[in-house]
């Protein structure tokens, strides 16, 4: 059984369903805990949604590559895109104590990354954005 899978996605929001399926089937194949799989599926979705929504100024087709890999006691997901440089971690955290009227719409995706992942790193390499998320597996 492969410890790494790669999924190529088009920059269309309809691809998010495939993102969910890929993370779930990877989780099933490796018998990962449901909570870990759900957290990773959500965070990868948020990152890919951001890329599809904001990374491209043109209307052309672009490939976004998702890699899932299982290491020792740790699950990693990488999202690679050829969009404009963008580090989602630069976004300020939302104020969750604000009342309904005052609360800005948006900003939650990055909050999910910070809350649910054990590590998130952004790199710009060879004209591509690379976002790596890591989640520790329960012992």
């Amino acid at each position, binding site marked *: 059984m492969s410890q790494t899978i790669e999924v190529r996605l088009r920059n269309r929001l309809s691809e998010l369903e495939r993102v969910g399926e890929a993370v779930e089937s990877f989780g099933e194949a490796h018998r990962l805990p449901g*909570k870990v799989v759900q957290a990773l599926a959500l965070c990868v979705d948020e990152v890919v*949604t951001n890329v599809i929504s904001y990374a491209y100024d043109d209307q052309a087709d672009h490939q976004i590559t998702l890699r899932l890999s299982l290491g020792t006691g740790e699950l990693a997901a990488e999202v690679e895109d050829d969009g404009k440089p963008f580090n989602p971690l630069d976004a300020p955290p939302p104020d969750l104590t604000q009342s309904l009227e005052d609360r800005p719409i948006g900003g939650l995706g990055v909050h*999910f990354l910070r809350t649910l992942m054990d590590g998130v790193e952004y790199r710009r390499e060879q004209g591509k954005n690379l976002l790596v998320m890591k989640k520790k597996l329960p012992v």
Partner: protein
Amino acid sequence: MEITEQKKGSVVLLVLTGRLDAGTAGRLEERLVSLIDAGSRSFVLDFMHLDYISSAGLRVLLMAAKKLKGLNGRIVLSSLKAHIREVFDIAGFSAIFPTYDQQDAAVGSFQ
């Protein structure tokens, strides 16, 4: 995602099935906006068959709740699966949206 709509007196019941993500949230937004524009003010969203929600789905719920607040209307939710409840908790949305375990209780909360 599928949306089925029923009227329970003055309450609009929307049952969501599948995934509420950035690819599908626009359909819910359109439905809610057109119902609000047509005069509906009381909404129950039943999540019993909802398998997944991302921030794009939460954004639509917040938008509708804000719109309704100014019109003396509201949205309540029912039958959230445990992992969806967790997303609401992390987002701080559990304090914003009244939630009920059963659809009947959610509809009844408007009486």
